[in-house]
């Protein structure tokens, strides 16, 4: 069970692990935009090299990254095939009689699959090397400017932490209720669709009741302990911005400028 979400964070001691969550979040969001700058073989090559360096620095075993690709491999192949057959530009590479594969189609297909691959790798590295709690902490600081427009940043961050805390609990609960109802003879995976849908109701009722009860208990506990919002609260975990955080952001900016100059 735990391996589904928290297994995605792998504690470690690498360069990327030690970075501040704020710089990692900024880096990934900027990278998503920068990826779209590339449009020829040279710029895609630079991007790919950059991604590989980040993977090496994170010391994440390639196995984890490849494993994370499984759900999207179909999507990638679909994209590739779509472009292979739909784009009709440039010289013909293969003539199958009923279908022709053009150079431009192959090129576009490979480019877009690569772009997708790099996006998936980069975001996986973020969640693999940063614990959910530091992600929340980082987001809270990054969202701080929005306090000016009355966005309740502290409350939102607290809600995120509470959600993260309760995901495994509620997953266990769902699992338990599912097994309990199966023991009573409910079958979610067989039979006509109408029956399967009906079987969902006895699953959701106890789940909702227990979740709302948890929320109520939690609210009571918070009030009893004197929770009064973010005003004047201090933090147990303090974020520290190091030189290496500045370095990776500068590296990204340099690469972005390079891509912009070399794009066709």
């Amino acid at each position: 069970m735990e391996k589904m979400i928290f297994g995605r964070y792998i504690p470690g001691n690498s360069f990327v692990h030690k970075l501040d969550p704020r710089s990692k979040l900024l880096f990934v969001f900027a990278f998503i935009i920068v990826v779209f700058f590339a449009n020829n073989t040279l710029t895609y090559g630079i991007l790919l090299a950059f991604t590989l360096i980040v993977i090496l620095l994170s010391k994440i075993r390639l196995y984890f990254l490849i494993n994370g690709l499984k759900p999207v491999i179909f999507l990638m192949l679909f994209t590739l095939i779509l472009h292979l057959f739909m784009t009709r530009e440039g010289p013909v590479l293969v003539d199958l009689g009923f279908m022709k594969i053009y150079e431009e189609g192959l090129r576009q297909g490979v480019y877009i699959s690569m772009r997708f691959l790099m996006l998936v790798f980069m975001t996986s590295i973020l969640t693999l090397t940063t614990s959910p709690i530091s992600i929340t902490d980082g987001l809270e600081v990054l969202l701080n400017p929005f306090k000016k427009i009355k966005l309740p940043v502290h409350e939102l961050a607290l809600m995120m932490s509470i959600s993260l805390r309760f995901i495994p609990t509620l997953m266990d609960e769902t699992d338990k209720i599912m097994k309990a109802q199966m023991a009573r003879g409910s079958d979610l995976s067989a039979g006509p669709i109408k029956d399967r849908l009906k079987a969902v109701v006895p699953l959701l009722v106890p789940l909702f009741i227990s979740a709302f009860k948890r929320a109520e208990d939690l609210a009571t506990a918070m009030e009893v302990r004197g929770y009064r919002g973010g005003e004047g609260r201090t933090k147990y975990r303090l974020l520290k911005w190091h030189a290496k955080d500045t370095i990776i952001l500068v590296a990204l900016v340099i690469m972005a400028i390079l891509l912009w100059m070399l794009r066709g």
Partner: protein
Amino acid sequence: MKVKFLATSAIIAALYIAITMLVAPISFGQVQFRIAEIFNHLIAFNPRFMLGVVLGVFFSNFLMSSVGPIDLIFGVGHTILTLGIFIFICKFVKNIWARLVINTTLFTFTMFIIAAQLNLVLDFPFWETWLFVAFGEFVVLAVGAPIMYTLNKRLDFKKLI
């Protein structure tokens, strides 16, 4: 912000994420869909559920989306926009069944935002993708409507947040 509202919204978000992860693998035949999207129907009973659902979408997309954080902008934007329109419509429509039908139709329609995202990132053909994702969403919400209606009879969502 009241503490109870804060706690309930957080738990709703957690439930959304937990269900997205757990119940989703039980696929109903060939159609893949996110069962947790039925939480969108909660807003038909009380607009205050919106924050919890939006947070749930935010975190599920953040932690599990294959397309990456770009899904945060489009996916969360889709939910906020659609629920915003829906809450506005709810001011004029009081009948619960009518609200559920409107919500289903609205979400199916606005799936073009997700199609646009897939079009941007993966270069999928826009119209076909819209048809495909809208179908998935429609099935979940259409099936979810009677389920949520039944649940409401037993739980009375309006008073829970």
